[in-house]
C-alpha cells in the first residue's frame, strides 16, 4: 500500500513559516507527518532535516533529533496520561533535553507555559481531567516548546478543540512563529483555519500533491478541480440554507 506517493517540498531554515498540509482522511497527510517526525522511514525518497537525512539522523541520535523536532497531536484529552499529573511531562522534557540545569527546570517550564497563555501555577499538580480541552492543547504546545525545537509538526491540533476556542489555538501558532522563529507544519482537513494562519499550503489527495502555493492565493482561487471541490464543500455560517433551497426548488 502506498500512503504517500512522490511528494516533494522544502522549507528554508532561516525563514520561519507555517506550512499547511491539507487533505481528507486517506490522503496520506498523517503518514507524511510521521515520516517527518522520524517515526516511519520512507520506502523511497529522502526527507532531509538540517542537511542530514531524517532516518539516518534518528538512527544516530534520536534524542538530539527529538529536541529539535517536536510533535503536537490531535486529541488534547489523550496527549497526557489521564492517570498522571500533567506537569510531569513538562518537567521531564526540560530535564531530558538538557536546556536547563536542575534548578532551572521550573523556570523554563513556566516560560513555555507563559508563551501559550498559561502559567506553571495553573498546571502544577493537576490531572488532565481538571483542565479543559483548550487548556490541555495549550499545555501540549508548551511542552513541545520546552526543548526549544526548530520545527513543530502539528497533526490536526484543533480538530477536537471546541469551536469557540479553536481560533485562539490557531492564532497561537502564528504568534509562536513570529516570536520564536519557529517553523510549523500544520496538518489539517479544515480549510478555514488553514486560510487564517498558513503562509504556504499543500493540498494532498490519495498520497499525492494536487496543488501547492501561497496559501491565500490557493484558497481564494483554487485551480485543481479537486481543490475547487474541497473548497465548495466547506460549510460555513454563510452556507445558510443551501440544502433547504435545493429541496424547495424541486418541489
Amino acid at each position, binding site marked *: 500500500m502506498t500512503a504517500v506517493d512522490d511528494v516533494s517540498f522544502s522549507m528554508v531554515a532561516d525563514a520561519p513559516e507555517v506550512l499547511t498540509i491539507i487533505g481528507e482522511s486517506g490522503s496520506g497527510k498523517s503518514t507524511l507527518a510521521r515520516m517527518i517526525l522520524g517515526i516511519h522511514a520512507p520506502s523511497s525518497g529522502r526527507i532531509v532535516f538540517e542537511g542530514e537525512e531524517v532516518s539516518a539522523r534518528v538512527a544516530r541520535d534520536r534524542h538530539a533529533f527529538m529536541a529539535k523536532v517536536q*510533535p503536537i*497531536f*490531535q486529541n488534547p484529552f489523550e496527549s497526557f496520561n489521564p*492517570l498522571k499529573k500533567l506537569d510531569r511531562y513538562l518537567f521531564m*522534557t526540560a530535564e*531530558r533535553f538538557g536546556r536547563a540545569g536542575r534548578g532551572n527546570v521550573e523556570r523554563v517550564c513556566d516560560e513555555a507555559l507563559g508563551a501559550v497563555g498559561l502559567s506553571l501555577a495553573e498546571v502544577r499538580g493537576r*490531572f488532565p*481531567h481538571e483542565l479543559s480541552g483548550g487548556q490541555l492543547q495549550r499545555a501540549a504546545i508548551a511542552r513541545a516548546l520546552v526543548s526549544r525545537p526548530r520545527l513543530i509538526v502539528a497533526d490536526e491540533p484543533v480538530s477536537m478543540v471546541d469551536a469557540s476556542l479553536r481560533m485562539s489555538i490557531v492564532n497561537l501558532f502564528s504568534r509562536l512563529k513570529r516570536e520564536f522563529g519557529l517553523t510549523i507544519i500544520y496538518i489539517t482537513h479544515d480549510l478555514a483555519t488553514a486560510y487564517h494562519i498558513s503562509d504556504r499550503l499543500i493540498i494532498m489527495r490519495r498520497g499525492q500533491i494536487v496543488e501547492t502555493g501561497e496559501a491565500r492565493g490557493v484558497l481564494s482561487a483554487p485551480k485543481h478541480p479537486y481543490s475547487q471541490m474541497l473548497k465548495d464543500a466547506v460549510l460555513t455560517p454563510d452556507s445558510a440554507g443551501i440544502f433547504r433551497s435545493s429541496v424547495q426548488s424541486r418541489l
Partner: protein
Amino acid sequence: MGAILKDLLKYNIEFRVGSMLIAIVLVMSALSFVSPYPPSDTFVVAPDAPPSAAHWFGTTSRGQDVFWQLTFAIRNTLAFGVLVAMLSRVLSLSIGLLAGYKGGWIDRILMSVNDTFIVIPLFPILILFYFVLRDSMSTLLLAVIMACLGWAYDARLIRSVAMSLKAREFTQVSIYSGMTTREILVREHLPYVMPIVFSTTMNNMNWSIGLEVTLAVLGFMDINSPTIGGMLYWANQHTAVVAGIWWWIAFPIALVVAAFVGLFLLAVSMNEYIDPRSRLARMGGGAR
C-alpha cells in the same frame, strides 16, 4: 495505603468477606509456628479420633493432629501458590509489556516463545519432570517449573493491552518528552495493566494450588513435606473415606476452598478499586 484499606473495608462487602476468609487462612498458617507437634512426626497422638475438645479437627490414621497438621499444610500450599504467582507475574508482565510496546521482531520472537508455552501439554510435562528429577524434586523446584509454564496466557493478554496503549497519543508524547522505554512501560503503561495482573494473580494461584494438590494426591510430589495435597494423599492411602475418617478430608478441603474464595473476592474488589475508570471517576474525571 491505610486510607485505601479503610475505604475498601467501609464500602465494599466483597472486600470485607474476602479479607475475613484470607485472615482465617493466614492465622492458620501463622499457627504452624507454635505447633506442639513437628509436622513430619507420626503417631504423636491417638489415631482416628473424631473432632473433640482435645483435637478440634480430630486425628489421622497416622496419629497426627489434623488441626496442627493443617497449619503446616496451608502454609506450604499458600507459599507455593504465592511463589508461582509472583514469578510468573514478573515473566508475563515484562514479556507482555515489552512485546506489545516494541512490536516488530522483538514481538515476533517473544510471541513465538509464548505460543510454544501455550501449546505445551502441561500435565505430562510435570509428570516427566517428576520422573526425571525424582528425589531432587522439591516444592521450591516445582514452583519454579510451574512459574515457567504459567505465564504465557497472561503475557498475551497483557501484550494486547500494551499494544492499544502504544497507539495512544500520550505514549508518543512520553517519547518526545525524552522518557526511556523502561520509564514508559513502568510509569505510563503499568497502571493500566494492574487490574489484569490482579485478576490473573488470583487465577494463577488457584491454578497452581489446584495442580499442586492434584500432583500430590497422585503421589507425584515430595509427599513428606506437608501440603494440602499431601494430606489428601495420605488420607487416600489410608482409605479415610471408607473408614469414615471424614475429618481428615473435609477440613483440608474446606480450608483450601476458603483460600480460593477469599482470594477471588479480594481480587474482584481490588480490581474495582484500581481500575483506571473507577480511579478517574473518584478523581472526578469520569463524567466527561
